[in-house]
């Protein structure tokens, strides 16, 4: 079975966001970029499925030249092949999904993993959109996965619990933290990754349906009150919550 993993290259979550000169995106200067944290669970799951059922894995990334760093990391963890759909411009989720879907089709992959969301735009929709474009089934926000033959049993996280979903291949699975423990790349893996070829391609074009007009910082919070240093401050805290904030 051919298994595709879609990963994205994003600012580290510890990054402070500074708005760039265009006023519509972040200033990338001084920002450390990493593999999207949820994509690590996607890679691990792809590797586990391959170990169990056999097949071949391919990582697909839409992004600029710098994304190669993230692709190398995926290869070092054990992914077999890599494709970079090279595009430095902003694309909305639909446009990203269209490009990924075209390449997944081209690769003939019938099982696709990706993180449930990327930690930059936080949309949490590229997986579902990619599946729709391909006509695949999709389970999002997955924390447990079993594949037997053509059948998929996946648990997805919902408010206050989990849904256990039964569906069939071909499918897109989006990974949530808790699905597995991503492995570390071995030294051997890192060395091998350096030698692997990253195939560069032009992604299919698709029109954005969203336009970013401006990026702004949230209004700063007013400094609050320090009410006290021990339990004697508790009655005053409760009074404030009741009378001033009116939240209890």
């Amino acid at each position, binding site marked *: 079975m051919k298994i595709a993993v879609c990963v994205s290259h994003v600012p580290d979550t510890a990054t402070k966001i500074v708005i760039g000169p265009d006023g519509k995106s972040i200033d990338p200067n001084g920002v450390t970029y990493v593999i999207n944290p949820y994509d690590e669970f996607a890679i691990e799951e792809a590797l586990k499925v391959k170990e169990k059922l056999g097949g071949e894995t391919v990582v697909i990334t839409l992004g600029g030249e710098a994304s190669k760093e993230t692709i190398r990391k995926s290869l070092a963890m054990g992914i077999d092949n890599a494709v970079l759909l090279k595009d430095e411009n902003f694309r909305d989720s639909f446009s990203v999904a269209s490009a990924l879907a075209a390449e997944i089709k081209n690769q003939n992959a019938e099982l696709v993993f990706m993180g449930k969301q990327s930690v930059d735009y936080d949309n949490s929709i590229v997986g579902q959109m990619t599946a729709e474009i391909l006509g695949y*089934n999709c389970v*999002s926000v997955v924390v447990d996965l079993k594949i037997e033959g053509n059948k998929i049993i996946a648990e997805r996280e919902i408010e206050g619990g989990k849904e256990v979903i039964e569906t069939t291949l071909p499918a897109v699975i989006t990974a949530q933290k808790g699905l597995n423990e991503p492995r570390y790349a071995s030294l051997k893996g890192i060395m091998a990754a350096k030698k692997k070829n990253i195939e560069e391609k032009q992604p299919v074009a698709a029109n954005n349906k969203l336009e970013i007009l401006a*990026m702004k910082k949230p209004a700063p919070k007013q400094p609050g009150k320090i*009410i*006290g240093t021990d339990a004697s401050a508790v009655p005053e805290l409760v009074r404030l919550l009741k009378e001033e904030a009116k939240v209890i």
Partner: protein
Amino acid sequence: MANKILAFIEQRSGQIKKSSFEAAKLASSLAEKLNGIAEAITIGNEIQDLPKIGNYGIQKVTHYINKELENYSASAYRNITAKHFTENNFDILIFANTALGKDLAPRVAVKTEAGIAMDCVEFNYNNQEIVVTRPVYAGKSLIDIKITSDKKIFTLRPNVFAAGTPSNNNAEVIQINVDNPNLADRVIELKKAEGKLDVAEADIIVSGGRGLKAPENFKMVEDLAAVLGAATGASRAVVDAGWRPHSEQVGQTGKTVSPSLYIALGISGAIQHLAGMRSSKYIVAINKDKDAPIFQVADYGIVGDVFDVVPALIEELKKVKG
């Protein structure tokens, strides 16, 4: 100009979700603003109190009914919603940004060629054009966006848009029987975390961090949450340490929350945590370290030992709440 607006009403186990009332209310106020009309759609088996959607300004609810649709099925819900949206010539579709909304809305968007803006926290109008604001980078920044396609789908962050005081108007409910739902995916089991409120929906959240020192001390967090009718949350550090389940994690790789009250116990406030909870209406921090970044976002702080302050807080709240 957009003028037909549809609100998606979500049910689980036959109960309408609170955030769906917010979607209904927003749809009806959008209709007022844009001089249009607002209706609602819901999918499920038996649903309680459907006419109450009218309390939030919606005149007509279409209920697609079938026993097999009681639980969510992405394929069936997508087919029904997309068909209803297109065939009735709606221009705008509003969902709550819940687990179901996030899963379903993008599928309907692809199916109907609609543009989609997720997790909106603000609606503005520029010459009858809708400009929405949504958080990015887990709320470290915001973007203003507009959808350029004719059909538009928005999902609303729960707890941000007030449903307002319900009126006494009942909506007309039109039932449409779905003969063959054709489920390509189905829920075969629903695992409920018994008696637990989820942080994503809770109006009050009590969260604990490393300052709690050991997993058993989260009993204190749970006790405080119980007094307040709150959900329990956790910082990434304690989730990674295996003290608490990931479903409770608040922050950039956990859940982004906007309750009316967020109480942070023994949480220092790493940038990723602050990103996930800073839009809470009121924040209370109890922490020993006076320089902890959590105090920069807290409305009320006690610089003190959680083991001293929290038991006293539980007692005081019991008194006040009677």
